[in-house]
């Protein structure tokens, strides 16, 4: 089995996913005539993928008994938050040219933007409390309770995607189903008698 350090190094690759994809596309002329829209979508897609991948860690531990997945969760979670920030920043600064009235309007009336923004906001306290020293200070009980916020963050993130799409629902459906499975596994194990849970 690989060491935690090596695993973390490998995990860097998906964490840098958007950067890698954008870089490859830039070199290979892989953008459409509307590159700003492309970039925004790529950033959003990866944010959601990384967020869902953080939710895979616990099911892997529950189902297979592996202890290394949860050790990668911090890196993946921080990456999701980081790219979520970039996605939001890109939307506001580049796509909308820092037009404050647009953002106000969006947050007032566009459902899918409201839930997207909420999802990012929910990730903020999680990012801020990700350091080991903070976990120790807070104590595992308080910390775990705070980090339950990842569930609404993920749900709102998927909803943001579903409500954005015009009519081709294939990808949003895959994301929704994945979310159901990942949350469903946790629920199943919570309902089982303690003895049956893999350690």
């Amino acid at each position, binding site marked *: 089995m690989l060491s935690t350090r090596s695993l973390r190094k490998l995990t860097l690759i998906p964490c840098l996913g958007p950067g890698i994809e954008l870089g490859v596309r830039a070199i290979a002329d892989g953008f*459409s*005539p509307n590159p*700003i829209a492309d970039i925004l979508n790529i950033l959003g897609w990866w944010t959601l993928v990384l967020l869902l991948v953080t939710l895979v860690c616990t099911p892997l531990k529950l189902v297979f008994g592996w202890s290394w997945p949860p050790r990668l969760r911090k890196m993946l979670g921080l990456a999701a938050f980081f790219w979520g920030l970039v996605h939001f920043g890109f939307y506001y600064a580049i796509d*909308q040219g820092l037009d404050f009235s647009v953002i106000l309007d969006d947050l007032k009336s*566009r459902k*899918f933007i409201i839930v997207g923004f909420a999802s990012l906001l929910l990730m903020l306290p999680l990012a801020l409390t990700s350091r080991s020293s903070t976990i120790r200070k807070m104590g595992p009980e308080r910390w775990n309770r705070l980090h339950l916020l990842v569930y609404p963050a993920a749900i709102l993130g998927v909803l943001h995607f579903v409500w954005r799409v015009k009519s081709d629902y294939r990808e949003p459906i895959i994301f929704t189903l994945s979310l159901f499975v990942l949350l469903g596994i946790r629920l199943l194990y919570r309902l089982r008698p303690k003895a049956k849970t893999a350690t």
Partner: protein
Amino acid sequence: MPNRADPRILRQRQLGLEPALSELTSEADYKNRRQLLRTLGKGALIGAGAPVLALSRTAQAAGLPPFKPGPYATKEERTAMDDALSYNNFYELGTSKSDPKDNAHHLKPRPWIVSCGGEIKKGATFDIDKLIGMFPLEERIYRLRCVEAWSMVIPWVGFPLASLLKRLEPTSKAKYVAFETINDSKMLPGMQRSVLDWPYVEGLRIDEAMHPLTMLAVGMYGRVLPNQNGAPVRLVVPWKYGFKSIKSIVKITLQEQQPPTSWNQSAPNEYGFYSNVNPEVDHPRWSQKKERRIGDFLRRTTEKWNGYGKEVASLYGGLDLKKNF
């Protein structure tokens, strides 16, 4: 004579374009075929069978008949042709913006019939090459504004829809014009999925249809309309959101009732029958106040009626544009 391995020719083929015949053959041959096309255009209605169809394919390869600069040419910078040919919404060919170009070869614009019927003197079907030859062609440089808040400036080649409608002699019952796109799920890969109810349909009020701005386009950028842009004939209604400019038309029907339109059927609270470009009426999920002109970095303000207010605002006097979006 440039040969077919010429990178310029290959690039055009890659974009789904038929290179102008003048680029492939001698001047004499080019002129002869255009003369043939003109003669064909004056011919009888379909019924001639195979020889006509064979000549139609040649006619397509021969490029567009000659055209003159038309009215309503905006002075704004045209969108790069590469962009206009590779960023399209044409769900019959796939739902991504690059699908229509990648799958363009599936669409076969010949043989092609446009059937006209409904509240007119006499139903008529036209072979596409006859239709192309029926009226003098003009180049009109229009803005095209997609409902997704991006836009282009495209030099279309075609003729006013009114010319065709007048020829069809509508009765007094003709209050609307309905259009239908080709409905061939075996030919077109995107039609395997019901992202929309096929066939794609659109419609206009008779006064919108008869308006001098409304045109049937058979070419763009001085060449035959590429498949991904709605070959061989499409509608262009520049003051409305782009989805109303229905592509690859096979049927035109004049009728008394307001016709169904595909996007309205798909999401009636988001896409209305009129769908006039209007920054004051937002799409439920995104703002219509600004748009990205393809090729530009910053967004620009969207103009009411897509900037054609002088020409068309009078059609809607008194209409509540928020209710009738």
